[in-house]
Each structure stands twice: as C-alpha cells, then as structure tokens.
C-alpha cells in the first residue's frame, strides 16, 4: 500500500500540489485523473522520487520514502515498475535487451534465466518472438506493451503507469487497460495509473482520485463517478455533448 500524507509541492510561486492525502491499496487499480496542468504528473513524480515534495510524507507499506537516503530509496525503487507516457524504451537496445535491462543490472541470474524471464514477460504482453526488434521498429501499442514487460520483469510490488493509453487507438487502449488490470490482480500489485481516458476510468477504476487545481478534490470508484453530483468532476468526465447525453440517460 502507498499512503500520501499532506503532500505539498511548489515550483516558484506556483503551488502545484496542496495537502494531498490518499491511500493506494494493494491489488487494486488506483487512477489519478484531472485536467491538464492539475498536478497529476507532478504527484506521480513525487511518489516515485523524481521530485521531492516540499512537505508531507510518502509511505510505501509504512516506510517513509521522503526521509530515506539514496540507498534506501534505491531499495524501494527496485520494487517499482513504471510505464512512462512515451514508453521511455532505450533506443539503442533491442526489445529483449530492454526487458532484460533491470535483470542484468540488479540480479545475479544467469543469461539463460534472464532470457527465460524476458520470454515469459514478452509472452505475458503477447509479444513472443519480437525479441530482436528495436523500439523504432515497433508500433506505439507494441512499445507500450514492451514497456509493461520491462516494468514487470522484476516482479514489482508497485506499478505506475503515466497515461498508458495516450496516442493509442481505442481497441489497443482497451488491450493495455485489460493487461494492467490483469497484472494487478494476478500479482497483487499496488497499481497507480494517471489517465485522461474516460473509458479507462469506467473500465478499470477500482479507486479514483480526482485532482483539481492541485487539490484532492474527489475520491471514489468507477460506480461512484457515474452518480456523483460534484460539479467539477461532472465538468471533467462529461465534457462532451455526447457524454452529457449519456449522463442524462444514467440519471433518469
């Protein structure tokens, strides 16, 4: 479980995160949603340690990440898998080398054991046999799946996904969503997904945190979000006329 306690973050005069408190439970898909510039990515970067919050505590299974030294943080980070918005695959490495990278860096596995693990992870994301391709030779959806394979290679306890569906067609987006959900339940991972995709919200949102102007504005699950009266979240979720019409049918 990851717990955030009174997280504040400012950049100059811009107070990006204001007293964020929440809990991301194990074995659940936790979503962070909100408008562009609302502070979602900053919050996620604070959680994984790419930004240091000004005040507050980030607790990984009750261990305070914010006060740890670099070596202790590395211990936690080795339990983290992260899928970046642009996949962040290493261009100069093949698919196989990308997935094998954390295994090579942090384990004493033999070459065969590492290769077996890579093949297992690639099989898990339906990319068997694509070992020798380079990221540039793969489509956007494939790159996301390779990044997921790399993220799960070390059997992470925590999985972070920054807009996993951005730039993907609706069908591929569903494949990625389902994959994230399956992995979360199968390996009992604490998963945190930043998304703008309302389909993801309704499909996989076990716990949803809505960030508005840097505040923890609303929390609930995929059922609550369909029936909430919170105006800001209604404006966000039901932004288009089509969604407004769906909402009117739901509330009838």
């Amino acid at each position, binding site marked *: 479980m990851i717990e955030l306690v009174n997280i504040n973050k400012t950049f100059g005069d811009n107070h990006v995160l204001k007293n964020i408190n929440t809990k991301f439970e194990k074995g659940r898909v936790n979503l962070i949603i909100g408008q562009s510039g609302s502070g979602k990515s900053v919050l996620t*970067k604070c959680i*994984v*340690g*790419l930004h240091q919050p000004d005040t507050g505590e980030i607790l990984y299974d009750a261990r305070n990440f914010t006060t740890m030294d670099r070596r202790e*943080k*590395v*211990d936690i*980070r*080795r339990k*983290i898998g*992260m899928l*970046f*918005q*642009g996949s*962040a*695959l*290493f*261009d100069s490495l093949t698919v196989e080398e990308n997935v094998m*990278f*954390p295994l*090579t*860096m*942090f384990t004493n596995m033999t070459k065969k054991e590492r290769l077996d693990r890579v093949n297992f992870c690639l099989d898990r994301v339906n990319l068997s046999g694509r070992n020798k391709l380079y990221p540039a030779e793969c489509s956007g959806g494939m790159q996301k799946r390779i990044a997921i394979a790399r993220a799960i290679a070390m059997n992470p306890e925590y999985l*972070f996904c920054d807009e996993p569906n951005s730039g993907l067609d609706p069908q591929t987006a569903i494949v990625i969503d389902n994959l994230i959900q399956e992995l979360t339940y199968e390996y009992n991972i604490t998963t945190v997904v930043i998304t703008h995709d309302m389909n993801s919200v309704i499909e996989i949102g076990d716990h949803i945190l809505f960030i508005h102007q840097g505040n923890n504005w609303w929390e609930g699950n995929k059922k609550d979000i369909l029936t909430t009266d919170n105006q800001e979240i209604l404006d966000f979720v039901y932004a288009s006329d089509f969604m407004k019409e769906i909402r009117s049918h739901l509330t009838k």
Partner: protein
Amino acid sequence: MLGLLQNIGKYMLMLWVVFSKPEKWGVFRRRLFDEIELIGLNSIPIVGLMSFFMGAVIALQTASNMDSPWLPEYTIGYITRSSTILEFSPTIISLILAGKVGSNVASEIGTMKSSEQIDALEVMGVNSLSYLILPKVMGAVFFFPVLIIFSMGLSLVGGWVSLLLSGLASTETYVYGIRSWFNFSDITYALTKTVVFAFLIVSIASFYGYYTKSGAVDVGKSATRAVVSASIAILIANFFLTQMILL
C-alpha cells in the same frame, strides 16, 4: 556571472555523483567498450583526414616562408614535428573532437532526457549519471591519447608527402629535421593535455545533455552550448597547462 558560477557548482556536483562506484562492473565494462567504439574508433577517419592535411600545410608553409639562407633545410622537419606534437595535434584535434564528440554526447543524453529514458533509469534505481556518463568520460580519457598519437604520425606523413610532391625538401633532410633535438617530454606534455581535454569535452557535453529541459529545440541548444563551452574550456586549459608544464 551568477549563472556561470551556478553552472560550475552544478557541474562539480554532477561529477561527484558520476565518479561513484558502478552498479555492476560487467555492465560498466561493456558500456566502456561501446563508448570507446562510438567516441574513439568512429573518430579515426576525421582525425586522420584532418591530421594528414594539417601536417601537409604546416610543412608547405614552413618551407615556403624560409627565405634566410642561414636556416638549414632540415628546419622544415623540425618545425613541422614541434608544432604538430606540441600544439596542432593535441589542441586543434581536440577542438575538432569537441565539435564531433561533444555534440554527439550532448544530443544523445539530451534526447534520453527529453524522452524520459533517464527518468526510467532513475525510477529503476539506477544511478543514471554514473551509468551514462562515467563510461563516456573514461572511454574518451583512455582513447583520445591513442587518437592524438595517430594524429601526430599522420601529420608528419602529410608533411612528408607534401614536400615530396612539391619538391621543396628531400626526404632525408625532412626526416633528419624530425629527429633533431627530439625530446620525449614533448609527447608526455601533449598526452597530458589530451587527457585533460578529453575529460573536459565529454564531461561538459554530458552536463549540458543531462540538464536539457525538454524537446528538440532544447536538445539542439544543449548540443551547441556543449560545443562552445567545451571549446572555450580547451583554450583556457591549454593556456594554463602550457604555463604549468613547459614554463
């Protein structure tokens, strides 16, 4: 001025982290050989071409400017050797490498930064500064001296070919000039400078690459800043090293 001091402080802090123990020596060794190939071996053609013609021009200039009958013909070989070993090979070739290698390193690391690959390394728990920059710095420090020795040899060959083709001096007198008053400490001086220049080129380029903000425009700006700053640093370091070692 304040910005410059801040950058120098940031650069020093970066070096402190870069020179920490690699996560895995096996991975470091592989990365080192890759970098030696990328930074060093791939620079051989440009260094060879530049050195050959540089030596040829030095020899021709010296020969054509020797009006005094009191100056013996072998002076051409002596001056070509001295200027090549003391300044042209270590300094001019390093300036060229600052352009070629510096822009390559800054844009490679800058692109990794803007495409979140460096964030990915950090989230995995990898010391990205050490993982990315240390093999580049060590690769350059080990291999640039080899390039400069190669450059010295080819410059002297270039000088010989130009004199042979122009008929301004004989092979015997040119070789005699090259061998006259040879002092091995000149080579040590040149290679010492080369090691310092190699370190400056790659570390400065890595610094600008690593602290690229985001986007293609910033990557381009970082590459330009890296080349300009590394070139200035080479010129300043050359001045001080010459004073320290030769005087």
